[in-house]
């Protein structure tokens, strides 16, 4: 009995072992299978991430020997392999598309040129092409070459300034904005053509364009081409120019007109725009002593009067030295009366009447005592009855006066240098003496 009971136990244990082995092997197999599945998910995720991280851009496209020469930069951190080149002719009437298998590896951060040199396709400057590069991972870059003709671009032609005087030069500026979604390559303008209506034509001379072309123009970018335009004639003669790009889209043009105007320069304009001398009218003031400076235009007669104002030297290169002949002179608007106040170095407005504290003397020359460096201003005082004198002038007649600042000076590096003499009259000062 003991032996039989042992046999059953052994048989039972064997079955149990078989069952356990089956379960263990099943669980092991399942876990291995799931592990492989996990690995494949990881690999797929990695591939998708690589696909997303791939980044390259087209740096330059030229035509060498009637073949494309495309330069590509790998801007990402993964090596890429460009294995397909699509070329679509956008000019040709049948609009053909060709696909070429290429094999160009680009290392991270590196560049590869000459893409397109080995394909059996002849490319022409006069035709536009849509090109697409495809990488091994399936990413692509699409761009167009010589493609101004494929779609209208935003073109503006502007003259800066639009009105000039005869003999002056204006700038003709062409702005081309890429309002498409693809990068443009080899963008170049044609020389603007003249619109020739009659009459009223000026003689216009157009200079060379700068720059002659843009290698690339990304979406949203603007290319700027500039010509110098010299205009000769009589106001209001004009020149009208029409500009367009090479290989243009039909009707995609822009127009600008430059009109001649007569040159008008007032003394103040001249002082301001020609860059010589000007005064700040708000700085004009007078005093009859007592320490008071007045900015109004009512000046009592019969009292010694001193004046002060700020003079600007707008010249950007030279220092002006003021002569002792520089005068603030007032002319009567109703008679021939005139009252000069010559320049002095300083006045004393505290006592009544005011005095000249520093006459316009500077031995041994006694002239050109005050200088105004370039692009600076100086407060000047006018009080003397005579050149270099120390007697203060005054008004004796009740009357309206119009005032002028008559400046005599020289542009020189030093007081004793001969320099170049310069004289100017600055008007628009008014006084009512009562």
């Amino acid at each position: 009995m003991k032996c039989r009971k042992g046999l059953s136990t052994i048989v039972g244990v064997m079955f149990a072992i078989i069952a356990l082995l089956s379960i263990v092997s099943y669980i092991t197999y399942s876990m291995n299978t799931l592990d492989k599945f996990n690995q494949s998910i990881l690999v797929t995720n990695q591939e998708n991430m690589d696909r997303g991280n791939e980044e390259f851009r087209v740096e330059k496209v030229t035509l060498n020997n009637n073949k494309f020469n495309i330069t590509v930069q790998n801007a990402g951190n993964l090596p890429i392999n460009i294995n397909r080149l699509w070329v679509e002719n956008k000019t040709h009437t049948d609009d053909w598309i060709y696909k070429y298998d290429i094999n160009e590896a680009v290392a991270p951060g590196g560049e590869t040129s000459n893409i397109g040199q080995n394909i059996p396709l002849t490319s022409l400057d006069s035709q536009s092409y849509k090109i697409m590069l495809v990488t091994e991972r399936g990413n692509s870059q699409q761009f167009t070459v010589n493609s101004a003709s494929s779609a209208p671009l935003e073109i503006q032609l502007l003259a800066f300034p639009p009105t000039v005087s005869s003999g002056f030069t204006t700038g003709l500026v062409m702005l081309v904005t890429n309002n498409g979604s693809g990068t443009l390559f080899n963008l170049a303008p044609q020389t603007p053509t003249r619109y020739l209506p009659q009459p009223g034509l000026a003689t216009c001379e157009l200079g060379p364009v700068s720059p002659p072309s843009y290698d690339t123009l990304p979406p949203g970018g603007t290319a700027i081409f500039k010509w110098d335009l010299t205009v000769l004639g009589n106001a209001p003669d004009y020149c009208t120019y029409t500009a367009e790009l090479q290989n243009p889209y039909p009707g995609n043009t822009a127009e600008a007109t430059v009109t001649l105007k007569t040159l008008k320069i007032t003394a103040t304009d001249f002082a301001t725009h020609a860059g010589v001398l000007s005064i700040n009218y708000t700085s004009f003031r007078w005093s009859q002593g007592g320490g008071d400076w007045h900015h109004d235009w009512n000046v009592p007669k019969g009292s010694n009067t001193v004046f002060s104002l700020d003079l600007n030297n707008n010249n950007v290169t030279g220092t002006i030295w003021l002569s002792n002949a520089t005068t603030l002179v007032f002319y009567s608007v109703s008679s021939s009366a005139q009252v000069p106040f010559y320049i002095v170095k300083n006045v004393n407005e505290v006592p009544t009447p005011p005095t000249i504290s520093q006459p316009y003397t500077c031995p041994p020359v006694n002239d050109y005592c005050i200088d105004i460096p370039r692009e600076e201003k100086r407060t000047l005082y006018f009080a003397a009855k005579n050149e270099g004198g120390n007697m203060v002038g005054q008004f004796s007649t009740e009357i309206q006066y119009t005032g002028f600042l008559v400046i005599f000076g020289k542009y020189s590096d030093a007081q004793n240098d001969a320099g170049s003499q310069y004289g100017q009259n600055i008007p628009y000062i008014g006084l009512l003496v009562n």
Partner: protein
Amino acid sequence: MRIGNSLYNRFSSRYHRRRGLATVVTGAIMLSAVGILGTTAVSWSNSNLVTHQEILSKSISDKTNKITEFITIENVWAGQNTMIPPPNKFLNVTLTNTGNIGLTVTEIKIDGITSKVTPITDGEIVPGRSYSTIIYYEWNTNDVLNVYVTTERDSIFRTQVFAQ
């Protein structure tokens, strides 16, 4: 007492012989039953496990293949075949297998102003290779077209193009 002892011994002897046979029979039956039941149970469980293994294996394999396959819709360009009378506009669709396993394209659907599903019968693409096909579809310039590519594993890849 002697008679009693004699009978006892006789019966006892007979009884002992019967009891031994029954035990053997019972043991044999029990052993057979255990064997049969054990074998059946083990066979059944093994069979179940094998079936489950196969199901699991196929399921995992299908899913692995499905997540591994990848198509790039490389280019879709619109054209017109002027050699034939209208309707003669078409779309040339180029697909590239950028995954790691071979796949079979079963249909391409163009969805624009109108929708068209085109079954593909020769769409087997090995990894790294391309497949191009022409689908006649009456597009208009600047139409926005959605292109759906379905594979045998029921993966759907989609892109959008402008008809130009």
